[in-house]
């Protein structure tokens, strides 16, 4: 029997040896490998390719399978993390910094005459700047405008919208464009909007998620409630926007799957709140005739800005080499490419003021690029509080907003509950973290929570 085992062992060893010998070469030994963890957007391939062409000493590879904060942090702390990874929000950045995996590159970038705080859109700061220190470079940035479907406007005999308007002025237009079929089912809605964009409504009505010093959640303020009430009313009072149930129904009947972009692309909405990055999908629908107008505003003319940034892993053996990738993000080639791919807006302002940006010869019908650039000036970054974990707070807020979305709870009660629960979570966080508690006490002037 032992000869059988020995024989099997030898055979398997031989096979392993052969496999090792004939394995395809994963990396080019003459180049320094760099791993970039990002999303699997097809646009990334070209972004990687341009970098590799510009930097013959590197072999940059995209790794979309290890994205996600938990994976990046755990792998980076274990020494097997990526060299560069993407960050999608202010709370994520705070998490990466607290975990010690995001490298403070303020001085490194300054040495290379890169000044993101001057050159980038302020709306993007929350994804790469924390407490005045720079931890990466923004890769793109966006605010939401209103996409409109010209064919639906033509069919309804409504002239294309022009210029800016308030929500009060906008609602009658959306009502005209909400049409039902002969069975009373919605044929198309006047407006489509992703629920996750609720912060824009809160900001526009003068509300905030956290107080300016970040010590309290203030979603229970009258302003925040008013903003959220409008978002709710668009679904249940004015009925110009689909409720969650309507959205599911439209997705099935239309067969385009779910999601606001796909619903809009399928003609289920005359207008939709969305960013320039929607073009990555909408360009595939050649029949769609599109226009863009600035999103309506409330008492305050602000738009919630959001984006993505690439950060360098502090524990990476190639972190110095990865700086070249950040320099690439600050360069013309990358910024022009982002504008051309319509992966939102280029992170550096100056590249959005070029003739190529305004009129891309490859897409002559896209005559609305000035709108994105103009409203970007009103973009405000996401608010964060250093005193609470963003995911914990987000979960509590989402729990309440779910009830508003399904019309099971009044906006006022849900927002009050959300603020109360998040403030409770802040106190729990302070109890866990003595340093943070000291900072909190300093911020509130020695007042103990």
């Amino acid at each position, binding site marked *: 029997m032992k000869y059988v085992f020995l024989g099997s062992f030898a055979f398997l060893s031989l096979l392993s040896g052969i496999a090792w010998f004939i394995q395809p070469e994963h990396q080019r030994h003459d180049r320094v490998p760099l791993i970039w963890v990002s999303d699997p957007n097809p646009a990334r391939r070209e972004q990687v390719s341009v970098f590799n062409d510009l930097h013959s000493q590197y072999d940059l590879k995209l790794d979309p399978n290890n994205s996600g904060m938990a994976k990046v942090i755990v792998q980076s702390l274990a020494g097997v993390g990526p060299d560069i990874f993407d960050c999608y929000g202010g709370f994520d950045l705070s998490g990466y910094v607290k975990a010690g995996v995001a490298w403070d590159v303020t001085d490194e970038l300054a040495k290379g005459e890169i000044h993101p705080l001057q050159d980038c859109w302020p709306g993007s700061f929350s994804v790469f700047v924390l407490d005045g220190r720079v931890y990466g470079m923004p890769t793109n940035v966006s605010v939401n405008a209103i996409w409109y479907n010209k064919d639906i406007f033509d069919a309804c005999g409504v002239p294309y919208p022009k210029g800016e308007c308030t929500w009060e002025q906008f609602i009658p237009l959306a009502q005209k464009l909400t049409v039902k079929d002969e069975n009373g089912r919605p044929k198309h809605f006047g407006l489509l909007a992703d629920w996750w964009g609720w912060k824009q409504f809160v900001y526009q009505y003068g509300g905030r998620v956290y107080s300016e010093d970040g010590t309290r959640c203030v979603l229970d303020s009258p302003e925040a409630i008013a903003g959220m009430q409008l978002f709710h009313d668009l679904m249940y009072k004015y009925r110009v926007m689909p409720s969650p149930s309507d959205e599911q129904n439209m997705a099935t009947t239309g067969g385009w799957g779910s999601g606001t972009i796909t619903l809009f692309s399928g003609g289920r909405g005359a207008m939709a709140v969305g960013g320039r990055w929607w073009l990555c999908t909408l360009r595939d629908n050649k029949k769609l005739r599109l226009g863009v107008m600035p999103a309506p505003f409330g008492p305050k003319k602000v738009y919630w800005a959001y984006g993505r940034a690439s950060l360098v892993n502090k524990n990476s053996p190639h972190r110095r080499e990865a700086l070249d990738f950040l320099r690439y993000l600050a360069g013309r080639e990358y910024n022009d490419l982002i504008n051309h791919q319509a992966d939102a807006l280029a992170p550096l302002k100056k590249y959005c003021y070029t003739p190529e940006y305004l009129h891309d010869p490859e897409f002559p019908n896209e005559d609305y690029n000035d709108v994105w650039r103009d409203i970007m000036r009103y973009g405000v970054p996401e608010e964060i509080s250093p005193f609470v974990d963003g995911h914990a707070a987000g*979960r509590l807020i989402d729990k309440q907003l779910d009830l508003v979305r*399904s019309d099971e709870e009044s906006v006022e009660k849900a927002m009050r509950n959300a603020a109360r629960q998040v403030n409770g979570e802040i106190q729990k966080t302070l109890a866990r973290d003595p340093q943070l508690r000291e900072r909190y006490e300093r911020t509130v002037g020695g007042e103990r929570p």
Partner: protein
Amino acid sequence: MSAPGRRHETLAALGFLAPNFIGFLVFTAGPLLFSLAVSFSNWSLQQNIPFQWTGAENYGELAKDKQFWIYFVNTIYMMLGMPVAIAGSLVCALLLAQRLRGIVVYRTLFYLPTFVNGVALMILWKALYNPSFGPINAVLDWGLQMLHIPAKAPQWLLSTANLFGLDPQELAVTWTKFGLGARDALIIMGIWIAIGGNNMLLYLAALTNVPQELTEAAQIDGAGRWAVFRHVTWPQLAPTTFFIVVMSFIGAFQGGFEQARVMTNGGPSGTTTTLSYYIYTKAFEEFQIGYASAISWVLFAIIFVVTMINWKFGSESWNE
């Protein structure tokens, strides 16, 4: 056998066991004990929070954590489908134990949900639960209309309603929440998956072991089909039922993660968040590893106690 021979044999046995045993120590027992230790600490993946042993603080906090108790109730609620699933498995096994032509095909068909990728199944069920145009509500609406019942079919995955009127925010009953909602939708799907699953196979195997002479003796004594089942088959299946019940309890306490992750994200309003999903969010979204470990050990303790109770009462009835 001589002493050197025995020693040689022992060494050989240990050698063969070693790979498995080392693997168990490194990948199972080690992390298990590590998580127990961590549950008495404030360990998080945040460098600004210095590591500290906090004693039973996490466990104390857990007792006061309203979310934990709400998700615990969710977990218990999800077990409502367990008796139906077990009974369904038994009925299926009884049917599939018949000696019919092509019975293997039937057995394969019933076992199919176990083979199919769970995520794919869940996406399919998500479409089935579409409130207005999904086939489930189409049938329900038609039925309600035929019976002239002025009611609407449930909103399923979009609704926080449930059979007991549990409030999603508090440990309380609210009359507006009575109905069928996301939790019930997941229970029904779970029953469908479980009926033709491993429990059915276990029952099938157990049915083949029921002594034929007992059944025949009962039939000669004039027992009908139900009497044979009630007094012969069912008692013979008791050990299997006991095993299935114990394993189902363990599975149910640990379950709910996949459904929450794929179908509902734990919503609406946290109603489909079970303890396993809560552990995940605490550990890998909020990075409170110590606290998440404490929840895991409390979950273990709950499972252990429930299994012991099952064992005590279940094995007593089995011995009877």
